[in-house]
C-alpha cells in the first residue's frame, strides 16, 4: 500500500463550532461538547454512532477518556497524540488509517477550551525546558520573537510586513460574525501597539479566547449518504525537527518545508492549485514563514509577498479567511479551526467571507514553538 492510495478515501461529513466568540461560565468540556453536537447534527448522526475518537486538550491528562465518558460513547480506537496546536490536523492521518482498516466507521476529531473566559491568558501543560528556563523566556512568545528577529535580519523583513499580516486577518474577521476581534485595525495601530518581545507587539500575537471545534469523518464510499456535500482528504503530512527554539536548526525555515511538499505529493497538487489557504497564525511571523515554506513564495520573500493587502479580502491569495488565530479565535490550540474553516469554504457556507470557486483548500497547523508542522489538502467532489 502506498500513501497516495489514501488520497480522497476519507471524507469530512460534519463540522461544528462551539463557544465562539466567547463562552463565560462554561467549561472546556461544555464548549467542546457544543461543537461535537453541532458536528454530529451536521452529519445527521448521534454520539452513539462515533466509534473512533481523536482529541487533545490543554487541560486534561487523559482527554480521550474524559471526552468519551462525557459523551457516553465507547470508542474502538482513540488517539490523543499531542504535538501542540497542530495536533488536530495531525489526527487526520491516524483517523484516515483507522477508517480505511475498518478499525472504526465514524471518526470524531474534537477540541474545546475556555481559556479566554476561564483563565484570561494562555494555559499550557507544556513543561519548562531545562536548558532554556533559567533565562526566563516567556512561553511561547520569546521563541517566536527570536524567529521573527532572525527573519528580519536575514531577509530584510520589516515590522510593517508583520503588521500587514495582522491587518489582513482583521479584515477577514470583519466578515465573520463569530470572530472575536472585529474592530478596524491599521498598520499604524499594530506598529504603535505595546511591545512585548521585540519585534513582536501585542497585536502581532494571537488572541486568547474560548472556543471549540469538531469534525466527523467517514470512508468516502459512504460519504454521499450524509446531508452535506462531502469534503475529501486529498493529502496530509507531518514533520517535526525540534521541541524548543534553541533546538531549531534554522529559525527561518520550519518543518513545513518538509510536510508541505509531502502533502502536495500525496494529493498530486501544487501551491498553484490551491484556492484558499488556512495557516496557523499564532504570531504574525508564522504566516510569512508558512507562505514561504509551503511554496507560495520563495524563501525570504514572504514579507514582500503580503504587502498591499495581497492576502486580505480582495487580494490575490485568500489566506486565513475566518480571521485566523490573530482575529477570529485562539483557545490555546487552534489547529481544528483551520480544518473547519476550509470545510465551510469548500461547501460554499462561509457567508460574507466566501471565496468564489473554491475547490481546493490547504490547511497548515503549527505546534509548540514552530516545532510540529502538519499540512493537509482538502477538496470538494470535483477534485477526486
Amino acid at each position, binding site marked *: 500500500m502506498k500513501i497516495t492510495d489514501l488520497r480522497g478515501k476519507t471524507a469530512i461529513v460534519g463540522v461544528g463550532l462551539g463557544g465562539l466568540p466567547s463562552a463565560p461560565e462554561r467549561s472546556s468540556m461544555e464548549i467542546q461538547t457544543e461543537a461535537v453536537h453541532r458536528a454530529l447534527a451536521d452529519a445527521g448522526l448521534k454520539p452513539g454512532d462515533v466509534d473512533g475518537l481523536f482529541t487533545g486538550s490543554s487541560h486534561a491528562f487523559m482527554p480521550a477518556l474524559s471526552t468519551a465518558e462525557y459523551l457516553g460513547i465507547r470508542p474502538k480506537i482513540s488517539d490523543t497524540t499531542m504535538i501542540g496546536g497542530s495536533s488536530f490536523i495531525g489526527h487526520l492521518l491516524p483517523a484516515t488509517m483507522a477508517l480505511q482498516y475498518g478499525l472504526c466507521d465514524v471518526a470524531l476529531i474534537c477540541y474545546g477550551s475556555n481559556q479566554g473566559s476561564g483563565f484570561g491568558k494562555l494555559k499550557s501543560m507544556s513543561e519548562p525546558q*531545562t*536548558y*532554556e528556563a*533559567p*533565562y*526566563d*523566556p*516567556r512561553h511561547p512568545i*520569546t521563541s517566536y*520573537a*527570536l*524567529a521573527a*528577529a*532572525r527573519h528580519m*535580519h536575514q531577509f530584510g523583513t520589516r515590522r510593517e510586513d508583520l503588521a500587514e499580516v495582522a491587518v489582513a486577518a482583521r479584515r477577514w474577521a470583519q466578515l465573520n460574525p463569530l470572530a472575536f476581534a472585529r474592530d478596524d485595525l491599521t498598520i499604524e495601530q499594530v506598529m504603535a501597539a*505595546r*511591545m*512585548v*518581545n*521585540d*519585534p513582536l507587539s501585542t497585536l502581532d500575537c494571537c488572541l486568547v479566547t474560548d472556543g471549540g471545534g469538531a469534525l466527523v469523518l467517514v470512508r468516502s464510499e459512504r460519504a454521499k449518504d450524509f446531508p452535506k456535500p462531502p469534503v475529501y482528504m486529498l493529502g496530509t503530512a507531518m514533520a517535526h525537527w525540534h521541541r*524548543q*527554539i*534553541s*533546538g531549531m536548526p534554522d*529559525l527561518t525555515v520550519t518543518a513545513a518545508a518538509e510536510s508541505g511538499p509531502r502533502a502536495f505529493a500525496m494529493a498530486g497538487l501544487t501551491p498553484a492549485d490551491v484556492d484558499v489557504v488556512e495557516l496557523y497564525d499564532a504570531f504574525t511571523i508564522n504566516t510569512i514563514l508558512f507562505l514561504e515554506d509551503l511554496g507560495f513564495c520563495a524563501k525570504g520573500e514572504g514579507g514582500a509577498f503580503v504587502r498591499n493587502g495581497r492576502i486580505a479580502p480582495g487580494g490575490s491569495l485568500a489566506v486565513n479567511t475566518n480571521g485566523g488565530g490573530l482575529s477570529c479565535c485562539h483557545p490555546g490550540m487552534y489547529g481544528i479551526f483551520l480544518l473547519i474553516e476550509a470545510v465551510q469554504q469548500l461547501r460554499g457556507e462561509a457567508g460574507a467571507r466566501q471565496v468564489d470557486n473554491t475547490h481546493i483548500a490547504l490547511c497548515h497547523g503549527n505546534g509548540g514553538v514552530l516545532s510540529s508542522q502538519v499540512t493537509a489538502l482538502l477538496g470538494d467532489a470535483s477534485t477526486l
Partner: protein
Amino acid sequence: MTNAFSGPGPDAVFAAFLAGGRFMLQQCDDCKKYVFYPRVLCPHCGSPKLSWQPASGQGTVYSTTVVRRKPEQGGDYNVALVDLHEGPRMMSRVDGISPHEVAIGMAVRAKIIDEPKKGKLLVFTPAQGGAA
C-alpha cells in the same frame, strides 16, 4: 568517555561542572561533533561515547529579543540564542550592555555568574574586538 548508562547522568554532570564554575561541553568520540544540551546519545550519529571537554566560551549571537518588563518588576531583559564556536546553539542572555543593544552577529564570550535564587548561570558578555 564516561559510561553512558550508569552513575550520574549528563544533566547532573553538567550541573555539577557549572556549580564548580566550569562550562563543559560533550564531544562525540565517534563523529567528533560537539553536543549541547547534554545527552546520553549523540544526536548526530547515535553514539553513546560522549566525552566532556572544556568549552572555549566563544560564541556569536544568532538571534536576540528584548523581553519587555515593567521597571518595578526588574525592567527589560535580553534573551538570545548563541551559536557556540564548537557548533551547538544554546539559549542564554547577553549581559554587560543594554538588552536593546544586543545584535545578531555580535561576538560574545561565556561567563558564569551567581544569579539570585538560581545559583550559577551561564551568560555571555560582548567579546573584546566587536563583531565575530
